[in-house]
């Protein structure tokens, strides 16, 4: 587990999704971080390079204790404020984020966090969380009522298969360098999960 990347992820997600009127809750940070990790897998990174793992909780949401600690650290250091439910970024948090984004280990993951946050700006977070429950790892765990580590062998294989299909369908490796907005694959994947739940088929060619 790497504390630095968990802290950066928490800071960036809070910064990208909070505004003067609305903050973001910790569980929403967890969900978006999970989506960001899936986007990294979509671009063929190994799950072991993400820096921390997720489990599925009895209420069906992905959870990382490293990320949970990190959101508390971020608040404790004054980079965000919390009213007990929602967190919003502070000016010191924005300054710190600028510094941390420039750190080399954070540069690559920043794209995935931005892609995930962009998704949250286009569709409601509860809808994203609901669609996620059909992700292979979460689906297996929920179906059998288990508390399990996500991205375990069986489920990971199926997820990678889905993401590879999506990658090939979008011809992502051949895309224009200026056209790498991860919002597109993120939105498509969430749509696929939603369709799969509705029994409409979860393959990219279903579009």
């Amino acid at each position, binding site marked *: 587990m*790497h504390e630095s990347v968990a*802290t950066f992820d928490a800071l960036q997600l809070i910064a990208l999704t909070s505004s003067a009127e609305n903050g973001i809750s910790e569980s929403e940070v967890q969900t978006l971080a999970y989506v960001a990790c899936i986007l990294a897998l979509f671009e063929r990174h190994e799950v072991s390079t993400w820096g921390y793992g997720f489990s599925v909780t009895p209420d069906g949401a992905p959870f990382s204790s490293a990320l949970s600690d990190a959101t508390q650290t971020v608040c*404790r*250091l004054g980079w965000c*404020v919390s009213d007990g439910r929602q967190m919003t970024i502070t000016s010191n948090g924005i*300054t710190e984020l600028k510094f941390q984004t420039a750190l080399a280990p954070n540069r690559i993951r920043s794209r995935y966090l931005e892609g995930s946050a962009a998704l949250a700006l286009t569709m409601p977070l509860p809808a994203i969380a609901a669609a996620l429950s059909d992700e292979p790892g979460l689906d297996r765990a929920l179906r059998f009522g288990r508390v399990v580590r996500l991205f375990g062998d069986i489920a990971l294989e199926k997820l990678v298969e889905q993401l590879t299909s999506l990658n090939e369908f979008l011809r992502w490796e051949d895309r224009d360098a200026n056209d790498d907005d991860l919002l597109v694959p993120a939105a498509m994947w969430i749509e696929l999960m939603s369709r799969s739940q509705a029994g409409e088929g979860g393959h990219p060619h279903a579009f």
Partner: protein
Amino acid sequence: MDGVTAISLPVPTRLRLNYFSIYDRRRAVDVRFDKDVFCLAGANGLGKSTFLAALNFALTGTVPRPELNFLGPSQFYEECREYSARYFDGRISSKDRENATVEIEFEVGGTSIRLVRGMFEPESLRELSIDSGDSPLVDYSSAQLSDEERHERYVSEFLRASGFGSFAQFVFLQLLVLTFDEDRRLLFWSERESEQALFLAFGVDAETSQRAERLQRQWDKADSQARNIQWQATGVRSRLTALREAVAGSDPKAGDEEVESKHRALTVKQEAAVSTLSLAIAKVKEAELRADAAGSHAMRLRQEYERAYAERLATPRVARVHPLVQELTASGSCGVCGNHHEGIDEVPLARIEAGACPLCDSSLPTGETSADGPEAKKLFALGDDLAVAEEQKLLSENDLNFRRAEQAAAESALFEIDRALASFREANTAVLLRQDGSSISDNAESALEREIAELLERKESQLTRRNEARKELDQLRASLISRFAEMEAKFVPDFRSLAEEFLGIPIDVDLVKNGAHVNLKLTFSGSERLTPDALSESQKFFIDIALRMAFARAFGSEVAPATLFVDTPEGSLDIAYESRAGKMFGKFADGCGRLVMTANINTSQLLLELATVCDVSRMELLRMTEWSSLTDVQLEAEDLFTEAFSRIEEQLAQA
């Protein structure tokens, strides 16, 4: 019936289980065995089998591994060790692991022993005290002995008091003969187990049984090796025959040159494949070293980076960024007194600017801003180095995977060419030998003949070893048979009366030589029942229990009765036999036998009948429902449990 052997068995008097998570309503469970029959009764899943397993674990440090193929007491003891160390994993939670212990007090051969064993420590003891009667009590619990040394002392004193030749013999007897557990291993139809039990019960001394075990193993090993060597010799003989046929009177033929040419081409291909594989292996080794170096470097940098990151976050923050101060500025309200007015933050901010804490007036550290101090610069530099190192690590791992795939392909290619070459040589042996000249075939023939001769000599040596072991073992078995003849006047009626109590029809048992072993043969209603499938499940289980009871009586005496341990026997019963089973158990407990058993609480007649035969002075019935929480289903049926208990308790009081 007085004991017929020189061995004394332990008679438990007290058992205490501490921090057994499965018994969630009691931190400690403490029971005494001061009556002939101790029965722990409860519903499924409350931990009855665990109780018996813990008792035996206390005595032996061993839990039997299910489906272990029994070859002898020493092998059994050795191969259960690893399983024993983890058996209680699912029954004791991780938070209780260190504190979970079993404490037992028991008598053996006139010696009183008390020990405490950790539930995951099969070969050590936390406490030990021994009172051998004729000398003062010795407490070995002090720190002068290590836990392992304490266990060794226990084993040594136990063997002295009990008369067993080895601890493995005791473990075998306690766990496989005197305990009928949830695995339902059948002693009667296991040749090796029952023969070992017979040696212990009727052998002249414990040493005889050990010797029999050693000789059996020697025989097995020598017999197996003789057969292996024969198989090798047969293979060599086949090669010799093929060679002779190939070179018998053949002249050069047309086409020989083409064969030779193809053979040369294949051989060249093989050499090339070997060379490619060697190179591939060398490249894999290099790639492994590079990947290790890159991985280790990246790991070190990652550790430094994380340390620097954490140190930076731990630097005292300037007060300005403290959440209370931030909140004061943002909301215009004081988080301490609740007051609210314009400019409320002016005074605190002025004090911060002056270098003093606005709350306690202490001097503030002059922390640098977060993005451009030496810590930040250090973190940047480490981050850059780390990114490079991780990239290198990824590249080296990819390279290693590539090299491994190359090696696998080279191995596969070599395998194919080897196969093709062998097949070609077999199909063209005569031609190839003609080309090599007859001197080579002469050499080959002599070498093969020599090899056969050597193999046959080794085989003879193994057969001699086997036969020597067999001869000595036969002598021991003969003495076992004659000893049985002396004792059967007591043992056989004992077994018959117990088994017939259950079956209700005549049964007989005799000792027979059965090929390589000496075993008991069962005759049931006048016809032999040689295999377990010739009986119903109830019959075979309870005949097995009757046999164990008879063995227990062979070891026990009026003064020191042997104890039989039985786990939920009524689970294996047809309803028609329930009452008879209770009578059988009662009969055992009536003469030179003690019983420690567990039972499900249901409408079974077994416990009712047992309670009728024994009375409250001879039988203790303990409710397990007070130890563990019941499931919802069990809670719904709690009235039924209570009713079943009460019936048995009433019967005990009336008996």
